[in-house]
C-alpha cells in the first residue's frame, strides 16, 4: 500500500515533520544539561537519539490517537480524499513553521504546530464549527499557564534548594544531607511521570505509589550511600554541583524518553490517518496505528537530533557558561513536576513553554546571572503566532490541493 503515491507522500512529510521535531524540540529538552556541562553535545545527541526513538517506538501509541481525532471532528468529513489532503496540508503547515522557528532558534511547541495545521484545513473545509473549541481554549490556556506556573514553581524550588544546600553555614555537610532528598524527590516525579506520560496510565495515585515512591526511595538510599562514601570535598559549591551534575544526566535522559513518547504523535498522527484511510477506507479510521509507522517517526526524530540537533547542542555547550548544575537541575525538576501535575489536572501544558518559564523563575530567584528580556519577548510572541501561522499555511496548501487534485 505504500505504493499509493499519497501514502508515500505523507510518509515523506511525516518523516520531515519528525526530523523538524528532532531538530527543534529534542535539542531544547537537552539544552539545560548541555549548557550546565553535565553532558557533552556528543553524549546529548547519542542519549537523545536513542531515548527519543525508544520512547516513540515503545510508548508513542496512545497519544497518536488524540492527534488523529481530538482536534477536529472527523465524523464531519465524508470524503476520504479530504482527510488525505488535509493531513498532508497540516503536516506541511506544521513542518514549514517548525523549520522557520528552528532557524530562528525559537522554542515553539510541536504539538501546537500540528494542532494549528489540523485546525487550518478543518476550517477551510467545514467552517469553524468543525473545531473542538473547548480543546482549543485549553491549548490557548496552556500558552499562558505553562510558563507562569513553570516560573513560579522553579522560583520556589530554587529558593528551597539554595536554602537547604547552597546557603547553609556548612555547605558540604548540608549538601550531603539534603542532596539525596532533592534527588529522591526528582525521581519520585520521574517515576510517576513515566507511568502517566510514557505508559499513559490514568491514575496519578497509582503512578505515584507504584512507580514514583519506589523510584524515589531507591534513589534516595543509593545517593545517600554514595555520598557517605565519596563526596568531592573540594569547594563546597563545586561539590554540590558535582552531585547534581550526575543527576542531570538522568533527568535529561528521562525528558528525551518522555518527549519521544509524546511528540512522535505530532508527526505520525496524520500519517497514520492517511495510511489507514488509503488502505481501509473511512472505516479504517478506527484501526490502531501500525507499529512500523511509530518506528518511522522515532527514526525521523533521531535523524533530526543527529543532523541538526547536533549543531544546536554544540552552540549551547559553548555559549551557556552561566548555567550551573544546580540551576539546570532546578529547571528540569520544576518543568517535569509542573507538566505532571498539569496532566493530572487534565490541562494540556507544553514542556517547552514550561522550561522557558522555569529558566525565568530561577532568574527571578536571583539564581541566573543574566537573562535577555528581549529574547523572552520574542519567544512569547512566537508561541502566540504558532497556531495561526501553521493554520494559515495548512489552509492555503489544502485549498491548493483541493483545486488541483480534488
Amino acid at each position, binding site marked *: 500500500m505504500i505504493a499509493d503515491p499519497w501514502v508515500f507522500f505523507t510518509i515523506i512529510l511525516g518523516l520531515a515533520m519528525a526530523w523538524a521535531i528532532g531538530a527543534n524540540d529534542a535539542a531544547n529538552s537537552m539544552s539545560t544539561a548541555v549548557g550546565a556541562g553535565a553532558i557533552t553535545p556528543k553524549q546529548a545527541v547519542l542519549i537523545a537519539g536513542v531515548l527519543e526513538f525508544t520512547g516513540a517506538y515503545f510508548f508513542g501509541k496512545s497519544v497518536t490517537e488524540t492527534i488523529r481525532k481530538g482536534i477536529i471532528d472527523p465524523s464531519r468529513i465524508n470524503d476520504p480524499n479530504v482527510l488525505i489532503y488535509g493531513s498532508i496540508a497540516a503536516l506541511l503547515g506544521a513542518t514549514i513553521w517548525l523549520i522557520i522557528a528552528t532557524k530562528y*532558534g525559537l522554542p515553539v511547541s510541536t504539538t501546537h504546530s500540528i494542532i494549528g495545521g489540523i485546525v487550518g484545513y478543518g476550517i477551510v473545509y467545514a467552517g469553524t464549527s468543525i473545531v473542538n473549541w473547548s480543546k482549543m481554549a485549553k491549548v490557548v490556556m496552556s500558552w499562558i499557564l505553562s510558563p507562569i506556573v513553570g516560573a513560579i514553581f522553579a522560583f520556589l524550588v530554587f529558593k528551597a534548594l539554595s536554602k537547604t544546600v547552597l546557603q547553609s553555614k556548612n555547605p558540604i555537610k548540608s549538601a550531603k544531607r539534603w542532596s539525596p532528598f532533592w534527588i529522591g524527590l526528582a525521581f519520585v516525579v520521574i517515576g510517576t511521570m513515566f507511568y502517566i506520560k510514557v505508559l499513559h496510565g490514568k491514575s496519578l495515585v497509582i503512578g505515584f505509589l507504584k512507580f514514583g515512591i519506589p523510584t524515589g526511595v531507591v534513589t534516595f538510599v543509593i545517593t545517600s550511600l554514595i555520598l557517605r562514601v565519596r563526596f568531592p570535598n573540594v569547594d563546597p559549591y563545586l561539590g554540590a554541583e558535582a552531585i547534581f551534575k550526575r543527576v542531570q544526566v538522568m533527568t535529561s535522559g528521562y525528558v528525551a524518553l518522555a518527549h519521544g513518547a509524546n511528540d512522535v504523535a505530532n508527526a505520525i498522527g496524520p500519517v497514520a490517518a492517511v495510511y489507514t484511510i488509503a488502505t481501509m477506507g473511512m472505516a479504517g479510521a478506527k484501526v490502531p496505528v501500525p507499529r512500523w509507522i511509530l518506528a518511522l517517526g522515532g527514526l525521523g526524530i533521531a535523524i533530526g537530533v543527529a543532523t541538526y540537533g547536533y549543531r544546536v547542542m554544540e552552540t549551547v555547550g559553548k555559549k551557556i557558561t552561566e548555567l550551573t548544575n544546580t540551576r539546570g537541575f532546578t529547571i528540569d525538576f520544576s518543568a517535569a513536576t509542573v507538566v505532571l501535575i498539569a496532566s493530572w489536572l487534565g490541562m494540556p501544558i507544553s514542556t517547552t513553554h514550561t522550561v522557558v518559564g522555569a*529558566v525565568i523563575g530561577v532568574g527571578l530567584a536571583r539564581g541566573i546571572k543574566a537573562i*535577555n528580556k528581549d529574547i523572552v519577548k520574542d519567544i512569547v510572541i512566537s508561541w502566540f503566532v504558532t497556531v495561526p501561522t501553521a493554520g494559515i499555511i495548512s489552509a492555503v496548501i489544502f485549498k491548493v490541493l483541493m483545486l488541483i487534485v480534488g
Partner: protein
Amino acid sequence: MQVWTKLFAKSPFKPLIKHAEVVVQTVETLEKALDLWAQGNYEEMKKYAIEVDRLEDVADRIKMELRNSVTSKLLMPVQRTDILEYLHMQDKVADAAEDTAKWLLVKKEINVPQEVKDLILKMGRESIKAAKLVYEAIRQMDTVVESGFSDAEIEKEYEIIKQIEDVESKIDGLDTKLMELVLNNNLSWADGLYILNIARTLSNISDKAKDAAERIRIMMNK
C-alpha cells in the same frame, strides 16, 4: 542561532572581574614607578608611568564594552544601576593611578626629604592593597550570586568591604601626616604643590576603592 544561547545573556560579573584585574595591574605598575621615582631614576620611572597610562586605557575599553552590554534588556540578580555605578567607581581607581603617574612625569628634579618620599611609598603600597581588595570584593560578589545569596558568603563580602574601609582610613591618616610634613618643611612651592598632588591622587585611589565597596554593599541588599 539557538534560543538558549541568546536567552542566557553574558554574565556582567566576568567582565567586571576582568576590569578589576586590569585595575590591580595599573596600581601595581604605579607602585613600581613610585619606587623608581623615590630612587631618583627618572628615565626608568618614565617607562612605568607610561605603562600606567596604557593600562588605564585598557580598563577604559573594558568599561565601555561592559556599559554597552549591561543594558536594561537584562534581567539580573542585582540592579543594573548598581552594576554601572560600581563599574564607574572601579574605573576611577585606575583613573586616580593614572593621575598620580601624570604628576610623576611632569617634574624631573625633586628636592624633598627622604621622610616625605617614604611616606609616599607607604601610601603607594596601601593603594595596592585597596585595589587588590576591590578585586577580591567583586570576585566574592560573584560567589555570593553563585551561592544564591547565602548569608555566609554575604558575611565574607562584608568582611572584605570592612578591610577596604580600613585601608582607606589608614591612607587618609598618611595623607594628613604628609600635608603637615610638606607644609612645615619649607619646601619650595613647586615641590610642595607637586608632592601634595601626588599624595592627593594616591589617596584618591583608596577613596574610589571605598566608593566601589559601598556599591557592592548596596548590590547585596535588594
